[in-house]
């Protein structure tokens, strides 16, 4: 059995934070996409691309920072597929999003074989170490929790704040939200609707790519086939649950991260197959009970004739 002592609580909370980060990054990215009026169903693929290419970048350059950059850039590249199909060619956003997911799921194992000659997983690359200076570790309780996080965790927290400020305090944020709510109205006051949509989707690609990089490069130092395991889809739900607000995404991700963390710890106690279902069961429960009263931006999927 498990003893409920401080050590266990710390380890659950530390694990919660680690599991929050990739969901949080993807969901915050999704908030950009949805707020600009483009559905965020491509998050899974963008995340997977980010997790593969970040490892490849680190492998090629020897630098985890370059790896991170690769993850972000390729997240954007994959998001642009979605953007071009949906924004320029008016393909239904759910379909173009799924196309991204399918492409990433098919392409990453292929590249694994081509680049590494391996199937299933990549070679191990240099990764980020935990940010654990003595002064931080010295803080009781909080110290060991934060001390077992790497630098991407702190970047993610900063990004949540920055994203919120961007969306709700800046001119561009207001305009982006206007595009997402009513593209016709936005166009009527002279806004370039397509540009804002492209920006929103690119941000979703960048942040989902970063989230993917955290999973591979940030946690394991390698890429494993299908390693996102539906986190991109869960992020879509979290984003709706968090009302397309970065802080809402933070709350939602922490909620999911907590159940995900519990899952790993209780695997030794309950049958692991049952326990591993937890995050997905929670997702379904959230979809059924947590999305009531929320509504997505009114202009989602609408185009303006120019």
């Amino acid at each position, binding site marked *: 059995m498990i003893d409920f002592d401080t050590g266990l609580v710390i380890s659950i909370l530390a694990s919660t934070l680690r599991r929050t980060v990739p969901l949080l990054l993807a969901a915050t990215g999704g908030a950009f996409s949805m707020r600009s009026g483009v559905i965020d169903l491509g998050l899974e693929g963008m995340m997977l691309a980010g997790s593969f290419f970040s490892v490849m970048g680190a492998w090629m350059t020897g630098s985890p920072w370059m790896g991170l950059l690769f993850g972000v850039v390729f997240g954007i590249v994959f998001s642009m597929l979605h953007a071009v199909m949906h924004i320029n060619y008016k393909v239904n956003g759910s379909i173009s999003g799924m196309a991204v997911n399918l492409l990433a799921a098919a392409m990453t194992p292929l590249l694994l074989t081509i680049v590494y000659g391996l199937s299933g997983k990549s070679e191990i690359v240099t990764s980020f170490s935990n940010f654990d200076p003595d002064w931080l570790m010295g803080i009781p309780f909080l110290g060991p929790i934060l001390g077992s996080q790497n630098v991407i965790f702190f970047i993610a927290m900063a990004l949540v704040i920055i994203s919120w400020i961007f969306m709700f*305090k800046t*001119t*561009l944020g*207001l*305009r982006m939200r206007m595009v997402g709510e009513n593209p016709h109205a936005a166009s009527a*006051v*002279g806004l370039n609707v397509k540009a804002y949509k492209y920006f929103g989707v690119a941000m979703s690609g960048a942040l989902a790519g970063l989230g993917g990089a955290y999973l591979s490069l940030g946690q394991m130092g390698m890429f494993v086939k299908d390693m996102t395991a539906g986190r991109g889809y869960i992020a879509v739900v979290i984003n709706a649950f968090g009302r397309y607000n970065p802080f809402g995404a933070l709350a939602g991700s922490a909620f999911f991260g907590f159940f995900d963390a519990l899952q790993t710890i209780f695997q030794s106690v309950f049958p692991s197959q049952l326990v591993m279902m937890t995050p997905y069961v929670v997702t379904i429960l959230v979809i059924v009970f947590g999305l009531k009263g929320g509504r997505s*931006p009114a202009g989602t999927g609408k185009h303006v004739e120019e």
Partner: protein
Amino acid sequence: MVEIVRMEKITKIYPGTVALDKVDFFLNEGEILSLLGENGAGKSTLMKILYGLTDPTSGDVYYHGEKINFRRPVDAIEKGICMVHQHFMLVPAFTVTENIIAGSEPGKNGFVDMRRARKEVRDLISQFKFNIDPDTKVENLSVGEQQRVEILKVLYRKADVIILDEPTAVLTPQEVDDLFVILRRLRAEGKSITIITHKLKETIALADRVMILRDGKLIRDDVDPSKVSTNQLSEMMVGREVDLQERRPAKNIGDVSLHVEGLTVEEDGKKKVNNVSLDVKAGEILGIAGVEGNGQTQLIEALTGLRRVDSMELLLNGEKITGASDGFLRAGIAHVPEDRLSMGLVKEMSIKENMILGYHREDDCCDRRGVLKRKEINDKGNRLKDQFLVKAPNVDAKIDELSGGNQQKVVIARAFSHNPKAIIIAHPTRGVDIGAMEYIHQQMIELRDKGAAILLISADLDEVKTLSDRLLIMFEGEIVSETMPGELTDIEMGLLMTGGHSMIEGE
């Protein structure tokens, strides 16, 4: 008077049609010009050219004496020419302030200065006495208030020339009056205003000058509204005599056909319809006047089986009717809904498909196995299209491609052609032009004279007054008066519609 806008010999050719044929236009500073014409006369096209939404095929536009060529509406906005669109360009989830400033926000370094924005908006609101709260969300505003937000948007952008496209189409009579007060106030501030409209009374009440277009040609541009009658105006607009005011009372009113007793509908804990009883006799039009939102929608939905009611007894020719809307239809209660596009038609579907919607299971459309009879439907569509004068290339044309008047004719054709015993008709001529309005009124009277019981609900006072054989007024879910048309003056009706019945009764 100083001329601010001049357009010379504007021609606009769309593939297959000449929308505008060498039309000259001018607008003076500080005047309200009514640009009058039926749907398709070219008035919107002319204004779109001025506003930069579309290019003329030929012709020149001058603004303050300077030749201009706006590529996009934004160019026009920058120069002070703004348009208030018929379909509002607002974000319901934003506050009034956010809606007004978005796209031209005050602030620096990329941040929005909400404090300054709110103050500027508040100042504008008080300068023009608009009486709306800058911090409420637009979704909580009435249609009239939303329109004021649109006007504020335009004022915030320092417009000198304001074009309003069919500004009264969606407003209640009270809101129309409020709008006119606002527009006169804007004129007093030196703004130049053009309203695109096909409403004659409003033109006469508001405009300083009337310009009339018909079939893309300029008919007159110097009509003084104080010197003409609505009949003269409609003759200029339509090209023939039209009389919408002539009453044709019923001659053969029969027994009670539709009997409603004790109808109560609760919604959000409020009684939207409170214990209403009414009878409509065969061969009679019973009109219900009232400000929108006083229970009319709930009444209509209850009488057509679209809504569950808290209590109602409904008899049609003595037979009790219950159940869902298809049961009501089959029993012979037809429905011309309030909003043709959201409830009456499927705009992506063709004319012939829309002609049978709701009646598609009947034997003439559908065989026993549930397969639609294509040929019969096609023939029926063609027959109704000809009979009800629906202007369209063919019956396969999508509803989307038709004008509002022709869309409404499709709804009318579907409902009227099934020889209903009773029919609930709501706002039958909202947003349709005079020609179509005259035609629809005529059809209603024919249907009545064939013995149908007609319940007419309309926000258009003139319409209810002209058509009804008996007139009810509804206020806050109750019937507050029953009279014969002509017994009450407009002022008395207005009072009753706004809850002043006790004042009149007390006289």
